[in-house]
């Protein structure tokens, strides 16, 4: 692999622009403005599927920032994603109001538990702005605390990966408990409305979908800004030669902490966008297996490329959607083989493959 990628070439910008227009303008129009029986009609299935995959893409991008650029492999990013989802899910739950099956003032699952009033951490969640704040703050603070201790103790590499796994596993067990106050295994479902609009209305769906697309685009641009800034170069330097960076006078702890926290916040936002689109958030999002899968999307696409992880998230999830229908008994074989093949033969992922091909065609790099 050569040096830092050029972010990005003109043709990439063009392709990205076209794709963004296609996804953010054309598809919504085809969904809302075209007759259901027309061959041009884009179904709600496609919209929610693409919307969901875009959330995963944001998550993969967040993973890429820490793994690709800072060399920190997190096997617990699911916890940040889920916390963001839960924070926004609380707002959506409150939005159900008394339309739940018990017509109670508290969410239905609290009725099961005989809770008459909301626990303290639910206060204020009926406000949209406050829940948005939680979406950012909760994953951010958890990441900040965890990162502070971990990076200060100079835990890195595999050790860090394993304790992030323990973190998400512990969080999953905690949220599975019904007494924790987040609906236990069932989590949050049956949302009715967001900001007063019905959540199943096509317009609302498209709005959330477009918002997701914009956030993805924004995250990509933010990521590009960060990795091309001096900060990004310091970060990559930490990844490649941490002690040299220290002897250049930088304190790696705060550098790692910043990108780690930012990545957690991005994951949280992805989670918040994910929940209204898939209609459920439950603790299994925090299972270690889910978090490992995020790393796989990133690896498949190509680390430290920004575009790669997005590509990886899209491809793996699209393949999953396709294979679970066409080869339900065998898709795990595909997925498993993909992990192995990518790590063995494509250490730089699809982006690495692409640039190798381009080099082959144009003869030599650059």
């Amino acid at each position, binding site marked *: *692999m*050569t*040096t*830092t990628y050029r972010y990005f070439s003109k043709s990439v910008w063009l392709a990205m622009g076209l794709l963004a227009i296609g996804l953010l303008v054309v598809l919504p129009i085809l969904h809302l403005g075209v007759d259901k029986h027309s061959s041009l009609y884009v179904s709600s299935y496609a919209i929610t599927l693409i919307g969901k995959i875009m959330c995963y893409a944001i998550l993969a991008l967040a993973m890429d920032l820490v793994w690709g650029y800072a060399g920190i492999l997190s096997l617990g990013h699911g916890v940040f994603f889920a916390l963001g989802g839960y924070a926004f899910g609380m707002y959506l739950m409150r939005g159900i109001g008394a339309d739940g099956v018990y017509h109670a003032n508290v969410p239905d699952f609290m009725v099961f538990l005989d809770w008459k009033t909301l626990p303290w951490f639910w206060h204020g969640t009926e406000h949209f702005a406050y829940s948005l704040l939680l979406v950012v703050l909760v994953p951010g603070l958890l990441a900040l605390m965890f990162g502070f201790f971990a990076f200060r103790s100079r835990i890195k590499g595999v050790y860090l990966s394993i304790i992030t796994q323990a973190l998400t596993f512990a969080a999953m067990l905690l949220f599975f408990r019904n007494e924790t106050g987040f609906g236990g295994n069932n989590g949050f479902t049956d949302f009715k409305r967001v900001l007063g609009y019905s959540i199943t209305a096509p317009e609302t769906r498209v709005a959330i979908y477009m918002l997701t697309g914009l956030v993805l685009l924004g995250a990509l641009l933010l990521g590009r800004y*960060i990795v091309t*800034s*001096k*900060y990004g*170069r*310091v970060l*990559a*330097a930490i990844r*490649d*030669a941490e*002690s*040299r*960076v*220290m*002897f*250049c*006078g*930088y*304190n*790696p702890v*705060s*550098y790692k902490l*910043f990108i780690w926290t930012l990545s957690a916040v991005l994951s949280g936002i992805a989670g918040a966008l994910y929940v209204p689109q898939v209609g459920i958030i439950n603790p299994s999002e925090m299972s270690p297996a889910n978090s490992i899968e995020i790393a796989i999307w990133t690896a498949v696409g190509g680390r430290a490329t920004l575009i790669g992880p997005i590509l990886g998230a899209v491809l793996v999830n699209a393949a999953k959607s396709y294979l679970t229908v066409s080869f339900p008994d065998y898709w795990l074989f595909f997925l498993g083989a993909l992990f192995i093949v990518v790590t063995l033969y494509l250490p730089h992922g699809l982006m690495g493959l692409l640039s190798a091909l381009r080099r082959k065609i144009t003869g030599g790099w650059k």
Partner: protein
Amino acid sequence: MNTPVTENNETQDGGALTGLAHFVQPGELDASHGPVLYLDDITVSFDGFRALNQLSLTIDNGELRCIIGPNGAGKTTMMDVITGKTRADSGTAFFGQTLDLTKMNEAKIVQSGIGRKFQKPTVFEQHSVFENLELAMQADRSVWATLFARLDSESRDRIADTLKLIRLQDSADRPAGLLSHGQKQWLEIGMLLIQRPKLLLLDEPVAGMTDEETDRTAELFLSLAGKHSLMVVEHDMAFVAQIAKKVTVLHEGSVLAEGSLDQVQNNKRVIEVYLGR
């Protein structure tokens, strides 16, 4: 060293007022009086093995000092102690008269003005030569500052000057990983210089260089002496002879001999260690 007693007392507690002439900011180098580096009675052991054994050494402001010694004499460990990578079991280490190195972390030590080149050249291989220098350049090291940092023309000029100095102008945009071994050594030296350190620690700077590169390095070091203090660890005696005014021989973790190259070469104990035994 002939520093006045009163001042020495002041420095013991981190130093607020040194002498009457000027006020010293805590955390800043004050080498206005005497040695820039002061090691006293440093001992470091690993698993019972004493890598440094009551080592005492001072380096004066602007001095170019060569350190020689057989393998395992403790040269690298000494540098580790100075740069905060290894903590001494006992002993004192001061940078200037106010900065207690044993109480500072690596980044702080570097920021206060000590630069180090490793035995094995370590540059950021994925970054271009230019970026390597940019990262090493003295600047605000906080996260926010780097996030919004823009290269001003003065900095560009400094990088350009340094590139010239280390003769890598033509490779500015190449990834450092593609440089030759000698070029990497040069780049690393450049990365030290651009930090404008008071004291440079150079571990085998000419290892793997061609004769021509070695000569040029010697020239460079001689030109740096005076403005900076240099501590050079080297085995290449021809190179040492080219640059050395004062040579320190380390052996089994402590100073065996110190003096001009001639003095050292004729020192009986040195001969014994190197040849006799």
